């Protein structure tokens, strides 16, 4: 519901005051960097008001004025700080031009209710700035690792070459290290082996149990549910401690009494531990999907002569598949990302990618970690997109949202 607010031009004094504050702030930042803070403050304010005066009173043509501002600021940036400064100048010039006309034409009022007082309008936008800052806090760490992983030196920070967009400052050497280093490759293979097997176990058992749980008459339903979800509730460090004692004795029994290969037993222990951790996620997502499942469909299938197994695979399974897959993805990411339990239960030959990252972060810190981190971020973006698509499909299948 967009409010129909009539917008009108604002007095120039208001625009100039606002632009002076903006300019003073920007000038202060640059001034501080050059060690001339007071000068920067004054220059920024004056320059900003001057430019606003030129574009608003003299030119009075928005399109030309905004292009002019863009050109002015990018040339300024280019000559003072080089290529990077030029890019920053383009961004700043665009923002400056947009902001000055946004204020002058009163566009900031356009989407707001007409009865808001100026103080309320100010709060409305300050609130958005605060939220923007929190979103920045949320997303910056993830964005920052990406360019740093292309660093041509073994530093964890931006080198001057990188800031100048000098090609010499960038390289793929950390990615090459990841691909050539035996330790990283082995842990990557371990991760790719352990996580899928654990996922398959938790999805098979979890889906069956979720179907059982969603029937109408289940004795001790709450207790069973609490037991099945408990691996998610108990902190990982406690699960790990418990598994450390128990799995060690089970492992010893398997090795010594049954004579099974030690390496194999190690993998079995880790896979079992990880599938336990993934089960609550499968249970939760699949039971949630089954809430919307129409039970008369299975009865109709039975009525037409299908046995329970056929009914399950031909009728029920296709309908709850999106839920099962997203539960499986949760289980997969839990196992793929897990460090604590595997450190307690596994041995060095089961080292996974997160474990290798963990030792890397604690001991011999190398920027290869950032390359791996970037790969994992891309991976999680793909996963997130898949989940979103599945969720939409599931809602469509269950008829919860209009198509």
């Amino acid at each position, binding site marked *: 519901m967009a409010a129909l607010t009539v917008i009108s031009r604002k007095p120039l004094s208001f625009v100039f005051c606002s632009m002076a504050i903006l300019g003073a702030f920007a000038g202060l930042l640059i001034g501080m960097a050059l060690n001339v803070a007071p000068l920067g403050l004054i220059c920024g304010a004056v320059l900003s008001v001057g430019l606003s005066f030129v574009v608003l009173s003299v030119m009075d043509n928005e399109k030309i004025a905004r292009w002019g501002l863009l050109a002015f600021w990018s040339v300024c940036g280019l000559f003072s700080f080089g290529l990077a400064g030029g890019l920053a100048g383009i961004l700043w010039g665009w923002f400056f031009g947009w902001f000055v006309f946004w204020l002058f034409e009163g566009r900031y009022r356009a989407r707001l209710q007409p009865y808001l007082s100026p103080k309320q309008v100010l709060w409305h936008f300050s609130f958005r700035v605060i939220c923007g800052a929190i979103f920045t806090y949320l997303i910056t760490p*993830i964005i920052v690792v990406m360019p740093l992983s292309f660093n041509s030196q073994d530093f964890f920070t931006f080198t001057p070459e990188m800031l100048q967009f000098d090609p010499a400052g960038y390289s793929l050497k950390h990615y090459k290290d990841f691909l050539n280093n035996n330790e990283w490759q082995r842990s990557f293979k371990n991760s790719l082996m352990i996580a899928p097997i654990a996922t398959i176990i938790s999805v098979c058992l979890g889906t069956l149990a979720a179907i059982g749980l969603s029937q109408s008459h289940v004795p001790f339903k709450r207790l069973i549910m609490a037991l099945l979800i408990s691996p998610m509730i108990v902190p990982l*460090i406690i699960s790990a401690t418990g598994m450390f004692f128990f799995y060690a004795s089970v492992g010893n029994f398997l090795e010594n009494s049954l004579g099974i290969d030690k390496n194999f037993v190690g993998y079995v222990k880790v896979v*079992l531990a990880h599938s336990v951790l993934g089960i609550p996620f499968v249970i939760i997502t699949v039971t949630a999907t089954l809430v919307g499942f129409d039970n008369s469909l299975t009865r109709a299938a039975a009525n037409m002569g299908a046995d329970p197994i056929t009914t399950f695979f031909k009728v029920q399974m296709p309908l709850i598949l999106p839920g099962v897959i997203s539960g499986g993805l*949760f289980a997969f990411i839990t196992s793929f990302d897990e460090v604590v339990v595997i450190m307690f239960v596994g041995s060095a030959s089961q080292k996974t990618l997160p474990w290798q990252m963990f030792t890397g972060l604690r001991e011999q810190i190398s920027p290869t970690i950032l390359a791996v981190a970037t790969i994992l971020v891309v991976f999680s973006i793909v996963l997130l997109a898949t989940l979103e698509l599945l969720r939409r499909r599931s809602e469509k299948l269950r008829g919860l949202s209009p198509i």
Partner: protein
Amino acid sequence: MSASSYTAPILAADGTPLKKSLSRALRQQKRRALMLIAPLLIFIFVAFIMPIVSMLFRSVENDIVANTLPQTVMALQSWDAETGELPGEDVYAAFASDIKIAAKAKIHTKVGLRLNYEQSGIASLFKKTARKAKKWDMETGGPFKEKLIGVHKNWGKTEIWQTLKIHSSRYTTGYFLNAIDMRKTAMGPQRQAEDKQILLLLFQRTLIMSLVITGSCILLGYPVAWLLANVPVRQANLLLILVLLPFWTSLLVRTSAWKVMLQQQGVINDLLVQLGMVADGARLVMINNQTGTIVAMTHILLPFMILPMYSVMQTIPPTYLRAAKSLGATDWTAFWRVYFPQTVPGIGAGSILVFILAIGYYITPEIVGGTKGVFISNRIAYSILKSLNWGLGAALATILLVAVLILYWAYDKMVGIDNVKLGG
């Protein structure tokens, strides 16, 4: 209607009484549901519940002394530890025989290590004694009292024998006492020596820092959740990606990113130096202390706060606020008296979730916490993996588990475990 229909039971199609046939169908349904659940239930029981139970058992189990030194334990029963007198020759003889057998089986170091947690120095004492005892002849070698005191003068001190006697029972509360900085002595539980008192401090720090993290999550999460609930759906979905992307990104990736950001030569410090806000020589110390842990963990746990708050705020009609304002409330009153009380369930759910996750965290404090910013979970890992004091580790984990279960019980009362949602 005929009179017989009042007495004769209603029959199902196959001739059995309907009541019976219905209850049979119900039983069958129950059995089928349980059959479907059973495989997973057994799996969880074996692979998860039993390990936890074995850990609980571990925290009180103490049969190593009784198993390794059975004769000594028997002989010590008749000795009164509080008199201050040394035990008699029979105890010394029993010990000499026990340690000889243990030394041959090479298990004397284990029991020495176990007792060393209670009184330092015992491990080396046992090693030295066992080396000598291997050559002793049990039939003719006596008297062993002089011989043992000859090996090491500590065998002539009552404290050693007191420690042995106190820790000879098969089950002990000793580990739990250790976990709260106390120890078992002949005179009952006493405080641990000053330099060994660290665990209560760690518990306290875990509690305080988890509260701080929860508080900052509320502070940062509330505006974001409000924004998400009050912008058009399309925009809200886009913004939600910004919340869900960190949520889905690997924990190690986020932790390493914070290490990169907060280091002394890291991104934030570099930026501040470039901007001239901080002198190059006086870079901020933001990592390997409590600041690092709080900043990184708030970031990691923030989505867990935003998502429950968002789902509660979505259900609050925006008309309430407008109604309050049209009745004359100021912005603040309308928010505080009308909107805020309706969001309290969301805040409560998010806070308990974040708090529970925070007190059990291990990875992040280990990497960015240094020594000042670590939690009790780091101590558990240290006991299990480094110092090998498994009983203490199990006792600490048990205490933490009880705390978490109580909190979850509260969460269940407030929100319901069934209502746990994953990523919107």
